[in-house]
């Protein structure tokens, strides 16, 4: 499968830095990380989500199939809703974290960045003859708007009424005579919206949106995700890591009778956990994954993933620890640095106190 590239790459600002995330080439940053982060946390940021594959599930068996492959319950999901769910392998390993978009004639699954090929392969392996799995990525572009004032950009760019839609709404709308699919959903804890636009109109919409919002790349987005404890699967999942260890139990619904990976999840919920994940901050150096966590020289865990948080002005990351030590408010040593474990969210989104007017 061809690696994904942005359909609006030629319209990206000069100096954009690119990198590969799994099967996608994405814009890591469009300008300075601080400025992009500030746009997400203080104003409005424009995201090019071209690294996320759009997969259509259709056919007479679409709903049953979706119920089987998604870890959350979509049986009564309407065409006006979307939700986030994990997709699991039989052994409970995380295949991907997807946004499920309800549609009149089936469902759209939006993969996480760069994970679309793996998702497609998994879906096709589980599909029966009454289900069609179609990769629609090449027909669209997907953009995001996030920030405490992203609602204002939606109003100026598309339609003010869309800005105040309930969380996780999906509507068919029009932008400048073009049919689009619009969703109120995001990943940074701020007001978040997504627009699925036909590819032939993508560059025009991107250029127009740039008049109102600052483009933010993958690095700024993943930092903002971590600050509100939004999972980034490629950093947090791994061999032998179940959804509870990952701290993503809220992205599965074990009251559902059946889904791929359910037995493993039920066993994890009912078993004795060996490790749990908790956030930490401290120090200027960003520790690498696997850096030991110690107390009095005794190793008790390790770093899962860490970055430098602009909001906290220090290293911020996740630790995997024994369950009896996985709690906020503890002073631990990571490498040679003293850190403190945290309650989430690690940075409070400004949108939580910013009304839509």
């Amino acid at each position, binding site marked *: 499968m061809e690696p994904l590239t942005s359909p609006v790459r030629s319209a990206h600002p000069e100096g954009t830095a690119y990198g590969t995330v799994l099967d996608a080439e994405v814009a890591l940053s469009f300008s300075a990380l601080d400025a992009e982060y500030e746009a997400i946390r203080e104003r409005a940021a424009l995201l090019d989500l071209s690294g996320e594959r759009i997969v259509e599930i259709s056919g007479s068996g679409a709903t049953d199939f979706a119920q089987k492959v998604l870890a959350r319950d979509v049986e009564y999901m309407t065409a006006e809703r979307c939700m986030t769910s994990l997709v699991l392998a039989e052994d409970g390993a995380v295949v991907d974290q997807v946004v499920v978009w309800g549609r009149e004639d089936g469902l759209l699954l939006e993969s996480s960045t760069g994970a679309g090929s793996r998702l497609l392969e998994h879906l096709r392996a589980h599909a029966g003859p009454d289900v069609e799995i179609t990769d629609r990525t090449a027909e669209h572009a997907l953009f995001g708007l996030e920030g405490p004032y992203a609602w204002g950009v939606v109003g100026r760019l598309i339609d003010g009424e869309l800005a105040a839609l309930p969380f*996780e709404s999906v509507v068919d709308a029009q932008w400048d005579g073009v049919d689009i699919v619009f969703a109120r959903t995001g990943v940074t804890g701020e007001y978040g919206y997504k627009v699925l636009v036909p590819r032939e109109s993508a560059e025009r919409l991107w250029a127009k949106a740039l008049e109102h919002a600052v483009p933010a790349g993958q690095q700024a987005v993943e930092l903002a995700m971590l600050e509100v404890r939004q999972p980034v699967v490629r950093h947090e999942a791994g061999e032998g890591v179940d959804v509870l260890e990952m701290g993503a139990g809220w992205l599965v619904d074990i009251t559902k009778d059946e889904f791929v990976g359910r037995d493993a999840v039920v066993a994890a919920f009912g078993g004795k956990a060996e490790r749990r994940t908790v956030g930490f901050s401290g120090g200027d150096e960003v520790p690498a994954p696997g850096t030991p966590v110690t107390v009095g020289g005794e190793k008790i865990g390790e770093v899962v993933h860490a970055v430098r948080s602009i*909001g906290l002005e220090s290293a911020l990351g996740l630790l995997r620890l024994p369950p009896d030590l996985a*709690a906020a*408010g*503890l002073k631990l040593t990571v490498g040679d640095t003293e850190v403190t474990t945290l*309650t989430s969210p690690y940075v409070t989104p400004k949108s939580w106190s910013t009304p839509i007017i």
Partner: protein
Amino acid sequence: MTLDELRATAAARHETCAQIKKMIVSRLDLPIEPAWITDDQPLFGRGLELDSLDVLELYVAIEAEFGVALYDSDMSVFGSVSRLADHVNPTLAAPALVDQA
């Protein structure tokens, strides 16, 4: 702190978090086991998917069960179970974080 002291500190937080989870499930009549809620799980929007009416119910429940009035608090109090634990049991409070609000 020694490992045993850290375990005791963690246990105190886990106990308060467990009380909060039990209260949420009971007061809001959620069809889940309290232990299924994780300490860092978002309570609103994505996560436990509580809404503004649930907040009102939780204000009342928290005052009744913990003797703490949170009516004038900002929404960050409900950022997660663990964050709520800092407010209903201030002896647990983790170091102050950056508040963007």
